[in-house]
């Protein structure tokens, strides 16, 4: 069997595009609006999210046969919350400025439906490695959307990428203006809408 056909690989690759959590399941939109004004914050958020989904799925899947059914949600949430706090602590210690900009949104990963959704629907019924890849894929699929939206918003809204100006001064001298609208939340809605359209029409073909 080829690598690309194996269930483990498919668990990783499907949520990237074909079953993207943001595009297809419309989950995690709230944070996708909030942290995509700059590429820096979007990438850090994507990494934090991928870390949490991957390891929460792995942990919960490893314990899936011993978790008592009636308290499974409490156990899932304890695992997820611990991982999120861990990620937040690391950010505070090593990326203080970015963690200040992300403010509450790292903590809000706990309530991101993607994490809980993967734990409930996938990790509880699949072996650890495959669940880990599924979490990795879902985090990366979410991150991919975040980074794409942030790229467009930062480029058009501030003329910058990663905080460095990329639109040459000559453009501004000739009357080019940054699109202030791109800095606001509605712009993220419109971009995500257009991306969903693009993704749907690509997938049909």
């Amino acid at each position: 069997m080829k690598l690309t056909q194996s269930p483990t690989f498919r668990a990783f690759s499907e949520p990237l595009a074909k079953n993207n959590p943001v595009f297809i399941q419309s989950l995690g939109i709230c944070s996708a609006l909030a942290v995509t004004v700059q590429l820096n914050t979007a990438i850090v958020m994507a990494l934090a999210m991928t870390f949490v989904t991957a390891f929460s799925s792995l942990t919960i899947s490893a314990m899936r046969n011993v978790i008592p059914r009636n308290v499974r949600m409490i156990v899932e949430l304890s695992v997820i919350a611990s991982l999120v706090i861990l990620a937040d602590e690391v950010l505070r210690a090593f990326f203080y400025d970015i963690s200040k900009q992300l403010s509450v949104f790292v903590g809000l990963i706990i309530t991101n439906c993607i994490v809980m959704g993967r734990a409930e629907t996938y990790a509880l019924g699949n072996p650890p490695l495959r669940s880990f890849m599924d979490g990795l894929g879902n985090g990366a699929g979410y991150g991919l959307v975040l980074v794409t939206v942030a790229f467009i918003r930062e480029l058009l809204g501030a003329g910058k990428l990663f905080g460095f100006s990329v639109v040459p001064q000559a453009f501004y001298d000739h009357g080019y203006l940054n699109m202030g609208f791109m800095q606001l939340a509605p712009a993220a809605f419109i971009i995500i809408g257009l991306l969903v359209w693009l993704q749907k029409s690509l997938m049909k073909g």
Partner: protein
Amino acid sequence: MSDQSTSIAFTVAIALVCGLLLTGAATGLKERKLRNVAVDRQKNILKSVGLFDPDRPAAVAQIEQLYQDSIRCDAVDGTGRIVAGDSGAEALPVCFYVKGNQPAAYILPVDSRGLWGRIRGYLAIEKDGKTVAGFSVYNHNETPGLGGEIEKPWFQKNFVGKRIVDETGAFAAVGIAKGKVTDAIAADRQANYVDGISGATLTGKFLTGGLKEVLLDYEPLSEQFRAGPVSLPAGG
């Protein structure tokens, strides 16, 4: 064991493991976090006197160096006398931006009420005792996007050059207008107000009150600066 006690035992075990893990992480990273907070505070002191540009990030060592070279912190007692170094509970802390052994500005710590919690920052006044040199915020709990805009450069830049005295030279404090200064404030008072944030009227109101309180507390010191050049005591 019954189902119920299995569940309870399992959750207790999970809680214990998670708790231990997080305690370990929090203790292990504590020192780094405290250093970050200290540097962030130094950065905001520098920002309030215009020595640090938020658009051009600097390395931690650079900030610490700059802070050591140009800022000194003392205290001021109730009569406006400057006491070198960190002194008792009676005195108010104050920092100075020192240029050529002379204070070029003095920096007041702001601890104001906000909508959801305290707003902490710095307000710097030029050595004339009348003009605001800058304002910065390092800690607040205001709503992101609304009151939270107080931490953004566009809002803080508006403070530069505003006056804490009115046209006759009497104390007036500096406040946040409800809306644009040019629309909301009478012409002769416009120098005492900065543009407000739409959707954050209450944050503006509380911060206006907080700034006035701080400025009143330090008024004896401001009066000294208005009267003429102030020299700093030795040591500290």
